[in-house]
């Protein structure tokens, strides 16, 4: 019994689920509104956008990289989506937006993988470029003529779940399957864990270092599409600050910034923990000015606990 328990707590996902549960219980005791159906519905709704961006971020961080450009890529691809919606049918416009996100990611990925530049620097540059282009292309104006049927991506429901939540779940299942059951996913882990060993064992290190940035860019476009569908307009400022939330979710979810360690389920719990804490603070009437301090503390605490638990002197 004790053995099983140790093994369970040794499992990253189980630890994260435990932590999420703990926070949920604490919040439901602290606030009578937390467990109401409408609030739970809110929680899911708020998880969607950051949840989708966090998938791409997980891919990138697993290879030992980082993508600081996610927020700006959302801004730029959002504007491109808005412009495309004026010219093309909705599905075509969405595909174009996703393709442009993937294209931006492929450039960052190539600079990191082929030219060996630091991911931090490359995506910092991409962050500035994409935000600036978003303003230039949009003429600093919000695009508000988003066609009404787009909103079905959010508000249609199926089996009692809203469409955007279903999209989130489907993407998580796909990502989980890819990372744990497909050659490419295992290669991403191997590259992040020991690039040299992966190379010598014959894995395609270059391609699988680029791929995560493509996934991240494409998912940014998906996320901004859902924002556009929800609020019916697209702002060049969309996704501002998203990199912090996404990185925080991945890190709270137990991933190592050195690469090789982390999981998509962990990231999902990371997203839920972030959203619950934000939501709980709102319910409890914590001043918005204090919320940053609370979130920051939780990020550092989560990483500290994770590093103490998985302890060992594995990375001296």
């Amino acid at each position, binding site marked *: 019994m004790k053995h099983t328990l140790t093994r369970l707590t040794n499992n990253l996902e189980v630890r994260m689920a435990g932590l999420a549960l703990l926070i949920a219980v604490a919040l439901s005791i602290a606030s009578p509104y937390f467990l109401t159906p409408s609030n739970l519905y809110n929680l899911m709704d708020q998880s969607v956008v950051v949840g989708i961006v966090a998938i791409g971020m997980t891919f990138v961080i697993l290879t030992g990289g980082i993508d600081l450009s996610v927020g700006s890529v959302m801004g730029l691809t959002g504007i491109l989506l808005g412009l495309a919606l004026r010219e093309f049918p909705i599905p075509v416009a969405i595909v174009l937006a996703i393709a442009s996100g993937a294209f931006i990611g492929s450039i960052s990925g190539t600079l990191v993988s082929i030219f060996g530049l630091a991911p931090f620097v490359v995506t910092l540059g991409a962050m500035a470029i994409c935000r600036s282009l978003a303003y230039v292309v949009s003429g600093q104006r919000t695009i508000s003529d988003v066609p009404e049927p787009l909103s079905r991506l959010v508000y249609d429901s199926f089996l009692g779940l809203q469409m955007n939540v279903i999209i989130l779940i489907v993407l998580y299942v796909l990502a989980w399957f890819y990372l744990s059951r497909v050659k490419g996913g295992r290669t991403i882990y191997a590259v992040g*864990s020991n690039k040299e060993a992966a190379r010598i064992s014959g894995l395609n290190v270059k391609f699988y270092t680029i791929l995560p940035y493509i996934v991240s860019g494409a998912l940014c476009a998906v996320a901004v599409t859902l924002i556009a569908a929800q609020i019916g307009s697209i702002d060049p400022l969309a996704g501002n600050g998203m990199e912090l939330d996404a990185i925080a979710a991945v890190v709270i979810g137990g991933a190592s910034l050195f690469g090789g360690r982390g999981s998509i389920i962990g990231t999902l719990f990371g997203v839920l923990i972030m959203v619950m804490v934000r939501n709980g603070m709102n319910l409890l009437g914590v001043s918005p000015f204090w919320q940053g301090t609370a979130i920051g503390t939780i990020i550092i605490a989560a990483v500290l606990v994770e590093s103490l638990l998985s302890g060992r002197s594995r990375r001296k």
Partner: protein
Amino acid sequence: MSAAQEILLAATGVSKAFGSFYALKGVDFELVAGEIHALFGANGAGKSTLAKVICGHHAPTAGTLQAFGKPVSFHRPRDAMDAGIGIVTQETSLAGDLSVWENIVLPVYGSRSKPSRSQLRKTAAEAIERLGFAGEIDIEKSCEELSAAHRQLVEIARIVALGSRIIILDEPTAALSPGESARLFKVMDALRKEGRGLIFVSHRLEEIFAMTDRITILRDGASVKSNLTTADLTQPELIHLMVGRAVETLTAEKVPDTSNAPILLSLKEMRSAPEVRSVSLDVHAGEIVGLGGLVGSGRSELAEALLGLRPLQSGSIELLGNPYRPSNPRNALIAGLGFLPEDRRRQSVVPDFSVRENILLSHLSQLSGHRLRYGTRNARINELADMIGLDRARLDDSSLLNFSGGMQQKALVMRVLLLEPRVLVLDEPTKGVDIGARATIYAFLRHLASEGIAILLISSDFEELLALSHRIVPISDGRSIGTVSAGEINEEQLTLICAPRSSLEHQNTLLSSLAQQFGLQAGWVMVAGSQVLCLTRQGSTEGLSLPDPGIVAPTKDTAIANSLDQDSGHVCDEIDGHQSLLMVIENQRGIGMGSIAVLSGKNRPLDQHAIREATAHSLSVFEEGQLRLRAVGPETACEQ
């Protein structure tokens, strides 16, 4: 050791744990002033860990250290340095861009005192002078330009400049030629006479018997015997203490005849500059060919070039009889070439993968579709685990890092074998592997060879290389030097052949003085069975000539065929009116180090007595007097 001698350092029950793994478990050790004390043990016995505990890199988990009679506890290297303990590590810790003198006084920059530059330069110059290298090492040069041997001396000078009385030398001869080692030993001797205590970490028996006063033997992290007097021990006793049982692992087995077997790997003048200059070799099916070279000779780089990790400039490669152009490791795998890299932690182990998935890593790389198909390899993994002696139950452990070095290596050998390669390139397969696991790995490699796999073995442990290989291809400065049967050569000879060409300088001086004095051609040759290798030659004669340097030739085809055949040590007549003389060189322990061969001009008889005398005189001032001429028997007629 007399009781009056000052005890510089005493370790009592020192243990060091990394996580749950004890690298040291209860080591006792004592160092007195004016001695060289050997720390002896197999790879992975804990020698280097103990050295690191003594010099403050690791804090001991248990036990006490006393330096100069006072208990000490070091928290960082600086503490040990301040207490008067210095270390010369295997990988030199010099800052390449800085000059020699700056490197020597580098520790001063970490302290609070601020002497002037000229003062520091003077300190450095004095340290070099004390070691006797004032004329040879320019202290203004940057350290990058120095040879491995000189770098090491700079490190020692640094310790001398600090005034450390306790000096640890961790495998200092690993990258040195025999001549360079001899000079290092002279420096060590001088430091000993100054009343310092030297800790000499080594696994080379010869060196330990030649240099050390006392010896402490480590096995599996514990001191089996502490502070024994070296002179009281014999080699077999020492080996027995190191291994814990009579040695049986390293006996050479009968070499199967594979000369008719197909050649599975063939390299012709392969070049991947700057490290690999020209390497030619063949490996037959069922054969283990040892690539013998010192650190820095281009051995590992050759392996990397074969995988396509380094560009190939010229030369041709045939793999399984087909032309092969290295492109990337995946294609090498698919073509049937398996590679086990040297550095497990850096190049092999994927720390976040389970043991099983680590083994499956090369399987992962050669999948053509996207599905993992891990299950298809289960049977083969189980079979390999049983063959190599890895507990099946451990295959699903979550991390390979919790395994001992030997178990890690077994799992990684399994990874390479999973794809059933026909040709295996193994780079230091027993580095950091305990004795028990070594024996298993040796037996396993022999088994693989007997099944028809061609193995190219790279090892800096020449004892292992000679015992395990069927043939040896020595490599020096990126050039292969023919091929010799493993049974026809000993460790010392192999070290001499593998010595960097730069160290031939001294030999050339000696040979050219002989050549000038007597008007003949002189060369340094090594004889192995019916083959001869000329290391270097000086002078020339009209007509005949000694064999070209660096090429192994059959003895009967050379200009000195009769001398080689007779092996009498006396002047022999050769064809066309030439005469030759072969003088065997041996070291202080009577081990042959090759021969000096001289070849006269046409119809110019050799004066045996005068030549031997001149050679003996030259040798006495050469290589610190480490070498001498072997005596010869009474003259017998040398027939044509």
